[in-house]
């Protein structure tokens, strides 16, 4: 894995590790229901136990997202969300908290703005880097250049279907952490965590990744506890989106607190 002292995501995960626990990563889309609420909710997550915040850019064709996130991002776009607002959200959260703030985005909005320009503005807003669900390292030449230039983390995804060769290549390409997709599917809450996740995390560590975080289908403190026993971080998305939808920022704060309780009893990683 390409490491730099400047990796904000790695630093946030390492702070959690130093406390003998996995990191909690909370996802919410920017502009849902409006830009100010996303800032408030991001701050609420950070103050209630989230170590990293993942801010999604609402996109017209989110093929990796299930119904809850699709509904939220569609509404955000309908409410007039503009891509450049994501930098306001990132800046608003980083100004108020110590959390590392990453942007999760499908690639076309970045390509449209220009990869270098997008990266420059993200770095200027204090962002840690990008999580790119539909960009694989094979197509990421421009992003490699821009992320190096602006010191941003490159969080690529690995899946249970990834071959050993692709795991090694993706780990090598990533900076900050590697995002392990717990199951073959799209975002959404599920009854239980797939058993494939633990093996994938082990394989990704074996391929050289220092930090591997697990997402997709993680929705309650029990799930968090289970994953925190073997992963460096736990990513929760849909459950938080449902919380802000149903109960606003207060509900996000409460859920984050509940989820982070799952970290407390985690077996400390060596």
């Amino acid at each position, binding site marked *: 894995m390409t490491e730099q002292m400047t990796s904000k995501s790695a630093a946030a995960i390492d702070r959690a590790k130093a406390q003998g626990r996995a990191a909690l990563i909370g996802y919410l889309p920017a502009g849902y229901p409006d830009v100010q609420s996303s800032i408030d909710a991001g701050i609420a997550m950070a103050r209630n136990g989230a170590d990293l915040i993942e801010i999604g850019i609402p996109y017209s064709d989110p093929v990796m997202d299930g119904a809850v996130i699709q509904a939220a991002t569609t509404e955000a776009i309908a409410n007039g969300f503009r891509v450049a607002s994501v930098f306001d959200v990132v800046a608003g959260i980083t100004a108020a908290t110590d959390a590392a703030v990453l942007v999760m985005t499908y690639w076309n909005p970045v390509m449209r703005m220009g990869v270098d320009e997008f990266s420059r503005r993200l770095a200027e807003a204090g962002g840690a880097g990008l999580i790119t669900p539909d960009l*694989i390292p094979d197509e990421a030449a421009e992003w490699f250049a821009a992320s190096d230039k602006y010191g941003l983390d490159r969080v690529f995804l690995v899946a249970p279907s*990834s071959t050993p060769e*692709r795991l090694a290549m993706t780990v090598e390409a990533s900076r900050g952490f590697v995002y392990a997709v717990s199951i073959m599917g799209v975002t959404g809450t*599920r009854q239980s965590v797939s058993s494939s996740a633990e093996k994938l995390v082990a394989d990704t560590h074996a391929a050289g990744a220092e930090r591997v975080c697990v997402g997709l289908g993680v929705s309650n403190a029990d799930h968090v506890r289970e994953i925190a026993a073997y992963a460096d971080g736990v990513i929760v998305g849909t459950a938080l989106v449902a919380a802000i939808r149903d109960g606003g920022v207060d509900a996000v704060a409460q859920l984050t607190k509940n989820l982070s309780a799952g970290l407390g009893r985690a077996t400390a990683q060596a």
Partner: protein
Amino acid sequence: MVDASTANSQENVADAFLQGGASLRNAAGPYFGSYGGRWMPESLIAALDEVEDTFEKAKADPEFLAQLKDLNKNYSGRPSLLTEAKRFSQHAGGARIFLKREDLNHTGSHKINNVLGQALLAKRMGKTRVIAETGAGQHGVASATAAALLGLECVVYMGAEDCRRQALNVARMQLLGATVVPVTNGSQTLKDAINDALRDWVSNVDTTHYLLGTAAGAHPFPAMVRFFHEVIGEEARAQILEQTGKLPDAVCACIGGGSNAIGIFHSFLDDASVKIYGFEAGGDGVETGRHAAAITLGRPGVLHGARSYLMQDEDGQTIESHSISAGLDYPSVGPEHSYLADIGRVTYEPITDTEAMDAFRLLCRTEGIIPAIESSHALAGAIKVGKLLTEGKENPADTVIIVNLSGRGDKDVETAAAWFDMLDEDGNVKGTTLSTRKPKGPSERSNLEISIEEASEDQN
């Protein structure tokens, strides 16, 4: 533009390639110039690799090729005819226009070529289930047909609005044993049907092949779908040589994703003397913003796995496309077309709904052939090309043009009847009590909706 300067420069581009010892015909992907690639979630890369590997092996396997050839001949009815449209030609400057009759294939369009090929590959991969997207229903019907023939389970994703507009095609798919899932996400159109098919694929990839219906998407789909449609151009080239003793002056096709077009273009790309035209859906007119002319007015971006021309706004959000033809109603285009447009080997131009429907009616009345509205865009374009190429010519009949008649228009009768003001307020054909559709009432609705599986089994 269909004009003399682009026509001449096409020739120069092809010449330059050939003199350099290069060929435009057999671009293998994943890239076509800077287009194509795999802008896809990692979760699907292994599946794409499996498809690519299976396809490459099958292409070199005489047994597979024999099996495909047998199905093309004895099931689809290939070779399709090349019919000279003598009365229609009089409206195109007197150029001789020949129609490549993909409308005569089983299921009524070129779509069957690709689905038979991919369904055979699905069997070779040991998959038991195929999924497909469909706009108007042609690819869905073709997929359901191939699945029935080869004993595969079939699920077709179709925009909810399209399900209502094309209720007969929904019924056809169901009769063939397929499950039709109405898509209620996003704009509820073809692009959203593809999104849902991709979500299904990523969740069921062990058992399922995604039978993509056009020459777009992530590698290997553009090159693979082209391969299964190359038979169109190979036949047309041999047929025109036999019937006229020479290569055509021009080849015309309509472009949505661009599968029928790349299929017929392929055989002529290296013939510098053959001008090639692709006609996009201009909808209400490209100046209105309500169109599907991705090459004409889009800019490069990534959607559904490929970098290609794309209708997008300033933020990179996909813009909804508009066309009277559901089959062309797609905001992007296959990546090979983007490349051929950039280098100037193929000229792409939009045709409005009005131009297409005029050509639709003209073919009905001059040739006794009801074309698909998609194909009518190619017919309208051919009229322009015919006039251009015969301009100032002493003997216009020396000019020969092939039009890919990609499908038949039975499915479009209701749309055409409404367009030509043939219906009264109740939807009956004027002067009769004949309805083009079932009476719209609560009973029809509920039947349709009950028989269709609900769109979103909540995965959340």
